[in-house]
C-alpha cells in the first residue's frame, strides 16, 4: 500500500476539475475525481479518503445535501476531512457547515493555486491518521 494521501475531488466544471487534479497530483496526492452529486454521494458513502474536496453547486445533488446524507448515515470507511469548494465568500450556509464537521472552505475565485495547495496541506496535517 502506498503512503500517498487519498483525496476525493468533486467539482462540476470539468476544466477546474482537471486543474485541481493536476495541481494535487503534482503535489504527490492520489486523486479520485467526480463531476456530479449522485456519483459523489455513492463514493462518499463507501468512504476511505483522507480528504474530500466538495463543490457546493453540483448537478444531481448539491454539496450541502451530500453532507447531510453522510451525516445521517456514516460512510463504511472513514472520511478524515472535508473541505468545501465555493464561489461565494463565507456566508451563513458555510458557517453552519463548519460547525457540522466540515474542516474548511476554499473560495475558488480567490485562492491562488499556492493557497489552494496550502489549505489542502494544512487540513491534512491537522488530521493525522488516528
Amino acid at each position, binding site marked *: 500500500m502506498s503512503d500517498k494521501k487519498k483525496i476525493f475531488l468533486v467539482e462540476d*466544471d470539468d*476544466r*477546474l476539475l482537471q*486543474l*485541481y487534479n*493536476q*495541481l494535487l497530483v*503534482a503535489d504527490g496526492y492520489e486523486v479520485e475525481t467526480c463531476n456530479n452529486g449522485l456519483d459523489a454521494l455513492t463514493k462518499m458513502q463507501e468512504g476511505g479518503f483522507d480528504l474530500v474536496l466538495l463543490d457546493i453547486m453540483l448537478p444531481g445533488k448539491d454539496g450541502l445535501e451530500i453532507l447531510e446524507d453522510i451525516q445521517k448515515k456514516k460512510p463504511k470507511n472513514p472520511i478524515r476531512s472535508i473541505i468545501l469548494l465555493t*464561489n461565494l*465568500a*463565507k*456566508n*451563513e450556509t458555510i*458557517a453552519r457547515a463548519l460547525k457540522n464537521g466540515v474542516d474548511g472552505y476554499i473560495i*475558488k*475565485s*480567490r485562492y*491562488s*493555486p*499556492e493557497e489552494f495547495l496550502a489549505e489542502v496541506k494544512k487540513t491534512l496535517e491537522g488530521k493525522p491518521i488516528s
Partner: protein
Amino acid sequence: MIMADQSTSQLQNVTQELYKKNLELVNANKEMTLLQRLYESMAVKLNLEELTQEFIEIIVKQLNFPGGLVTIRQPGKQSLQYLASDFEKKNQDIHKIFHSKQADMHVSLHHDTNLLVKAFHQQKELTTEDPLKVLVPLLSPENAKIIAEKGEFTSAITYPLSFGTHQIAALSIFFRRNVSELSHFEREVLNRVATVFGVALDRVMIYQDLKSANKKLKMLDKLKDEFVSIASHELRTPLTAVKGYLWLALNKSPTPLAKEVETNLKIAHDSTERLSRMVEDMLTISRIEGNRLKLEVEEFDLSELTKQVYDELSIRASTKHIDFTVNLPPTPIHYKGDKEKIRECIINITGNALKFTPEQGKISITLAQVRESITIKIADTGPGISAEDKHKLFQKFSKLDSSYQKVKESGTGLGLYITKQIIDMHGGSITVDSQLGEGTTFGIVLPLKSKLEAQ
C-alpha cells in the same frame, strides 16, 4: 315734502348701494370657497382622471351650472379625448350616454367647427348658442341632440386649459340661458377657474411623467444590478481556470520554459489576475448597490491582521525600493468585525500607496488605539492629492487627474468607493490628509466597540 322725498331717495340709494356691496361680498365669498376647494383638490389628487373629475364636479356644483365636460389632448395624438364630465343629478340619461360612450369619445384637432378644438387652437374662450357645436363629433348628432334636449341646454362656453405654452385640454360649460345673460361675476370666475385648472393639469401631468420615468429608471437599475451580478458570477469560473492553468504552465512545467515564453505567460497571468480583481470589484459594487453586502463578523486581532497585510505587500515594496515600515502597538487589539473585508480595505489603501509612490519613497502603516477608537494610518511620500481631487476620491469609478494619470497601471476606480462603504458599515470613517508634492496620509478610524455582533 321735498325734503322727505330727498331723504327717501337718498335712503334708497344707500340701500341699493348696500345691496350691491352685499352681493359683491356674497360673490367674493362664493369665489373664495370655489377656489379654495379647487386648491384643496389639487393638493391631494395626483391622478389625472381623478383630479379632472373632481374639478369639473366642484365647478358645476358650486356655481350651479347644469353641466360641463373636459377633453384632453393625448400625448402624440392629433385629437382631443373626452376625460371627465358632470351634469345635474336629475339628468340621469345624460350620465348614461356619457358613461357608455366615454372610451371612444374624441374629436380630431382638424375638426375646425368644433368649439373645443377652436378654443384649444386659438387659446381663448369662445361662446356659442348651439351646444351641438361642442358635443358633435364627440357624440353622434343623434346622441348630442338628446343630451341638449334633456338638459335643456341653449348655450355653451369653452375655455382652453393650458399652462404657459403647454396646451393641455379644453373645458366646456353648458347653460340654460343665453351667454349674454351670464353675469360679469360668472364670466370672471370661470376665467379664473380655467387658469387654475390649467395649472393643476400641468402639475399632475408632470407628476405622472416623473412617476413613470422613475419607475422605469428603478427597473433599469435593477436589471443592471442583476446583469452585473450574473455576468460576474459566470465570469468567475472560467477566469479561475485560466489563472490556474497559467500558474501550472509557469510553475509545474515538466520541461524548462524558454525565457520569452515564461515572460509572456507571466504577463498573461498578471493580466488575468487584474481582470479577476475587477470582476470581484464589480460583484462587490452590485452587492453594495443592491443592499446585499453582508458582514461576516468575528473577533480577531487587528494587530496580527495588519502585520499579515504588511508581510504580503513587502515583496512589492522591495521591488520598487520603497522604505516600507509597520508600527504596531505592543499588545493585541481585539476587534469585532469582518476580518476579510477589513483586510481588503487595508490592502486597498496600502496598495494604492505602493502604486503611486515613486521608487526610493517611503510608506508606513501605523496601528494605534486611542481610548475607544482604533486608527490605521497609511502614510506615503507619493505625489499627493489636490484639494479638488480630494472630494472625488470616494466616488464610484473615480480617477483623479493631475499626477495620477502618469501611473500606467490603472484600476477600476472602485477600490476606494468599496473601502469607504465597508468602513461605513463598520461604523468607522476614513480621513485623508495630503499635500501636493509631499505625500498623502490615509486614516481608517474604527470604533473599538462596534455595534456589530459576532456570528
